[in-house]
């Protein structure tokens, strides 16, 4: 079956979730694009947005409408050509409104799983619960006569395990979007030995049409992104424990976060990133990866201590950050949670002492945002890291230790056949995590 024929009937499972809604929008945009092609004028495209509650689905439609407007605004040059034959659509605004209507007309918000029984393609984006994923996919597979293809958004669970448990006979592939899917350029793509080649062809075309890029990963729990991220967290925790010998726990957390954000010029510190993703999500990913990691213990006591106190981080539906390892006010970190004392401590009470200990940022330092916009980024990073290396200040030395670990984790991912090559690890960190530089670099 041709690519466009496969796209005629698609279901997104977990469509109202943060990942599902983004995948739904991108797929709707691609189906709308197909619908406009002259050769597809007799085809009908249907996209089921399947989730558990009508309430969530009603919010979903508002989100999709907003995304469709944004997309149309950005692509207005092409859309004026698409709608050129419509004499009634004159202004950009007319065209943008019509595009949003056309895109929304493809989507059917539903709560009954039977809707997926006619689909050719199933995008699965429910929570990272292996049993739930298996149950949903196997039920659809048994009741759908089309032998549907399953594309799972899991960022941790081995695809071959899902294939086997759900009885899909190679009709599954990992297509892991980064959060938020509508914005992030990168996808991780995972095939198993049994994945049918036609799924790969479809995914390659789908990603190309979305104007995104992908990195292939071996089918190893956590893949490249979480394979890196979880070990990054574990190393940060180790550094916290070392600093605790001379500082309080909250001071140590504050300092490691500062080292990773400021000294290493990242978009956010490691513990802020954990809050952004959700502490519970991180714990879940670690628990999925743990049984597959034979030589190391993928388990974080720091994460567990927060979960035990029901401190979970994550985000509100409007994108605001919930409190987690840190408390936030207007997006800024204001306090650090101590799981032993079960309360937050204001950063202003101890930050001076910590900052003094870490020392000043070396010469040549720029914010992550500024360095990314700098046309001489590589040269400036080289100079900065040279100054970081020469500095005797504790902050700089800890940052250097982190940089070395950064590279070691990347090497292990390639050595242990999680990533195919160093460039792929760099690509995930650059485009998925938006680091200013990859872990395999010339700076150390």
């Amino acid at each position: 079956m041709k690519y466009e024929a496969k796209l005629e009937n698609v279901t997104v499972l977990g469509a109202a979730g943060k990942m599902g809604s983004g995948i739904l929008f991108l797929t709707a945009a691609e189906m709308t694009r197909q619908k406009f092609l002259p050769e597809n004028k007799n085809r009908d495209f249907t996209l089921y947005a399947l989730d558990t509650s009508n309430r969530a689905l009603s919010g979903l439609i508002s989100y999709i409408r907003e995304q469709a407007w944004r997309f149309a605004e950005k692509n207005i040059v092409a859309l004026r050509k698409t709608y050129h034959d419509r004499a009634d659509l004159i202004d950009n605004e007319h065209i943008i409104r019509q595009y949003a209507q056309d895109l929304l007309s493809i989507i059917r918000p539903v709560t009954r799983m039977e809707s997926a029984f006619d689909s050719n393609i199933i995008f699965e984006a429910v929570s990272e619960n292996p049993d739930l994923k298996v149950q949903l996919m196997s039920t659809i597979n048994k009741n759908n006569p089309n032998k549907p293809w399953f594309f799972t958004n899991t960022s941790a669970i081995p695809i071959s395990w899902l294939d086997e448990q759900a009885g899909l006979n190679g009709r599954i592939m990992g297509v892991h979007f980064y959060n938020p899917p509508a914005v992030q350029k990168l996808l991780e793509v995972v095939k198993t030995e049994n994945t049918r080649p036609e799924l790969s062809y479809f995914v390659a075309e789908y990603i190309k049409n979305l104007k995104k890029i992908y990195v292939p990963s071996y089918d190893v729990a956590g893949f490249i992104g979480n394979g890196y991220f979880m070990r990054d967290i574990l190393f940060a925790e180790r550094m916290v424990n070392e600093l605790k010998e001379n500082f309080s726990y909250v001071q140590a957390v504050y300092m490691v976060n500062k080292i990773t954000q400021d000294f290493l010029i990242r978009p956010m510190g490691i513990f802020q990133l954990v809050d952004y993703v959700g502490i519970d999500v991180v714990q879940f990913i670690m628990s999925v990866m743990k049984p597959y990691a034979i030589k190391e213990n993928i388990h974080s006591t720091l994460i567990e201590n927060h979960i035990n106190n029901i401190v979970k981080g994550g985000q509100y539906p409007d994108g605001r950050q919930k409190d987690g390892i840190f408390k936030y006010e207007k997006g800024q970190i204001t306090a650090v949670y101590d799981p032993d004392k079960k309360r937050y401590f204001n950063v202003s009470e101890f930050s001076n002492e910590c900052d003094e200990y870490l020392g000043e940022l070396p010469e040549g330092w720029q914010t992550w945002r500024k360095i990314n916009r700098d046309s001489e980024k590589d040269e400036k990073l080289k100079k900065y890291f040279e100054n970081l290396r020469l500095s005797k200040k504790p902050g700089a030395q800890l940052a250097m230790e982190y940089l070395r670990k950064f590279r070691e984790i990347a090497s292990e991912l390639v050595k242990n056949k999680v990533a195919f090559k160093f460039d792929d690890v760099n690509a995930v960190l650059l485009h998925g995590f938006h680091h200013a530089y990859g872990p395999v670099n010339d700076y150390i």
Partner: protein
Amino acid sequence: MIAGYNTISMGTGRSEFHPKKPRPGLEDYIKEAGENVLSQIGGAKNVDECVIANFIASRYNKQANLAAFFPYIDPNLTYKPCIRVEGACATGGLGLATGIKSILAETADVVLVVGVEVQNSVKAVYGADILAAAGWYKERKDGHAHFFPGKFSDRAGAYFEKYGRGKTRKAMARWYTNAIENARLCPTAQEFENSQKNLEQLALTEPNPNMFVDHLNVYDCSKVSDGASGIAIVSEEGLKRCGISKKDAIEVVGLGQAEYDLTKAPDDPVRLTTTDLAVKKALEMAGINHQKLATVECHDCFTIAAIMAVEAMGFAKPGEGSDFILEGHTSREGKIPFNTTGGLIGWGHPTGATGVHQAVTIWEQLTQRAGQSQIKIPTARPYALSVNMGGDDKTLVSIVYKKC
């Protein structure tokens, strides 16, 4: 003319600007410009008439009947005759022309002219729909999403075809560089804080037809701006009434206006024929030639428009405008400094205000008030020229000024 004033040209590039935060409204800009002119001329009591120049607040701000904002500037303007004029991006020039004609007709001795536009009320993609009203509405459907950049991109394509792309693009980049460097000297300019290092390299960025237009990049275009400019046009009698000395005034010695059929395409896409005619009329009325000019404010809505304007004004032969710019003649140290506070690309382009802003800049230069952006005005060349263009070379106002 006396007592000029420019508000900040607000928009992207200014640190005060944030699209999601509240900003001054139309009436705030009008009031700021109006009050500052009045404070220099002894107050509203001295004003006989008022002219407000605004292109299209009815769509950007859902506001019409703008002449009735004059009493809002100062209650002493209540019941005075006021008028609103419009001619697309030449609106400001038409405002000046209207004031000049009132003085010449002796119906007034002091005319307050305020030009204003607040355009950041909508995203640029919708602003393009609004600005397209400066063209013929029947062309909108087949026009580019970015209607006017599309028009001047077509002109640039024709110019490249006829005179060569490489040199022309270099001249466009040089024009952009001069504009930003001049704007950095003027605190009210939208690009005042621009700290980009390699401007010329940036300006040579290849156009991206998939996202914008075929032959222009964003640096070739003036930005979306909010702002107002005000000035007083006075007779000799009015000058005395305001208590202002002649040395603080500039004299209007030439006015050229010209109009082209809105429903017609340009006769020759590589020439600005209406600009050519308006400038000739203004210079003829002033009785001078180019050699007498100390500075020029030209309508560089796009860098390619600047090259064509240089030719249309007679500073270079057709096809040689690029050479004139690349040889440095239009820079502030050049033979004839153009757009000394940045022009539309550097200072900004709040459409209804632009023509008035040009007059204010010239008033500042000829009366030695231009601060950091002051250029030398040679005694032998006490004249200046402004050219304000509406639409695609459709509505033109050109004025020649003289140091008193």
